[in-house]
């Protein structure tokens, strides 16, 4: 991932019109499916994802059970029509890896010792993909878990920051400008991507991946941006959960 494509101009405006620390538009709805125990629909820029939680329920097969706590199985899946070139249905190496790191991130905030021998299944479906689907998926999963009534120490939330080619104010081109929440073009032609997930109450890092090239300074700035982005998204998650129950509240 290296490119000298200019994705941000000298006034600090990105190719999609955003400022460096500006998120794409995010819409979150809690409780959108009737069959699942908890669910969430989330739009993040052009991303559209649905997360559904089933459980806790007895883990099957039996040998997968942990007698002390629940196991968490996240399953990240992309619809065949969610990407430019049709994706063959079913899991590939990429989706398996993402499923694994998301499972591990979620497990940290779920009070799993309440449910020995059980499994909590988190299904994340990407219906439309446009840079940052793992962050969108994990964020939706956080809302779906809370909507399912699963005990949590925190509602996990994810966001990415990255580095894109830029022309500085003095007109010189530099390989990198740290920005929040890479969009489609930035993801394709940017110079680094740093998706993270955090527990927003404590700022603990639950998921962290990075590819590209960042100096230590750039990393710290990117991390600051991503954490700040997480906190902004976290507010939307909480609003979505409260909104679901406000409908019948106080209508008398």
């Amino acid at each position, binding site marked *: 991932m290296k490119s000298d494509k200019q994705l941000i101009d000298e006034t600090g405006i990105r190719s999609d019109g955003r400022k460096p620390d500006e998120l794409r538009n995010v819409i979150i709805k809690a409780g959108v499916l009737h069959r699942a125990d908890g669910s969430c629909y989330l739009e993040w820029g052009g991303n559209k994802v649905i997360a*559904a939680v089933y459980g806790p329920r007895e883990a099957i097969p039996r040998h997968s059970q942990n007698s002390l706590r629940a196991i968490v199985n996240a399953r990240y899946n992309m619809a065949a029509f969610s990407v430019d070139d049709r994706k063959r249905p079913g899991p590939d190496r990429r989706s398996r890896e993402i499923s694994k790191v998301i499972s591990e991130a979620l497990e940290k905030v779920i009070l799993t010792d309440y449910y020995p021998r059980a499994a909590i299944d988190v*299904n994340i479906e990407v*219906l439309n993909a446009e840079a940052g689907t793992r962050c969108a998926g994990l964020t939706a999963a956080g809302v779906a878990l809370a909507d399912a009534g699963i005990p949590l120490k925190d509602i996990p939330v994810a966001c990415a920051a990255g580095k894109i080619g830029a022309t500085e104010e003095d007109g010189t081109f530099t390989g990198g400008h740290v920005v929040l929440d890479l969009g489609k073009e930035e993801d394709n032609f940017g110079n680094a991507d740093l998706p993270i997930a955090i527990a927003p109450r404590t700022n603990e890092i639950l998921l962290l991946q990075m590819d590209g090239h960042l100096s230590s300074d750039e990393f710290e700035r990117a991390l600051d941006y991503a954490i700040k982005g997480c906190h902004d998204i976290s507010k939307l998650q909480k609003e979505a959960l409260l909104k679901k129950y406000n409908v019948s509240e106080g209508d008398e």
Partner: protein
Amino acid sequence: MTISPVIKKDYLNQLASDGKRADGRKMNEYRPIVIETDIIGKAEGSARVTIGNTQVVAGIKMAIGTPYPDTPNQGVMSTAAELIPLASPDFEAGPPRENAIEISRVVDRGIRESDVIKFDELCIIPGEKIWLCFIDIHIIDYDGNLFDASSLAALAALLTTKVPIEQHRESLEPLIEKFPDIQTYLDTHQNDYPLPVREPPISCTFAKFNNTIVVDPALDEEEIADVRLTVATDEKGDIRAMQKGLNGSFSVEEIKNIIKEAVINGKELRIKLKESIGR
């Protein structure tokens, strides 16, 4: 597998023998249907259909490929349905099982055998380059009658599909030298254009339990159904595809009645479908 209680089944059967359904519907009444199109930016056509609580998303992707040797002048379609574990506690991850395969085959047949897609217009260079059309059906929320929801979603998506020539122009241009006809195709197709389609047949699914026949069975009705019949009818009221399912049976008389109802319901669904795609 979630086991539903016998007394609940008995209750539904009892209601049925009095001509009633648990959700208050008439025997020949569908649940509320909502069809939305153009919901997936990455797809060439897409639709979300809800029938009651059942929710299905269909997306169409198109690509340029090689025709089959026996149909050198025709485009190719393929249909896949996935019962993803998002939709039901009883759906498992993994390759499609026979239920998903049956749904995709029935939807496929309803479209293919009625030539809904004008396959001959999807030919770019005979024997060399044609359009491939992939229909992918995603079951999002399962409360019965996946046949009709899937078929409606696939049709709404197809009828709003744009052939993505702008995106594929670059891949065709280098072939002009070898196949000069491509130039003509590119000249006449400057922009993305609507997928050439014909009036589609509309599927209606019926289930029988306790000798009562209902249209659009909800999940609790499907669970007690002995037998199921899907009938696709065209705008003239002719029958274009059928599929009987489950291990019960119908009398000839029952099938004749179902066909009559399928024509009536099909008309209403056709109006809904057309409204949703703005035609």
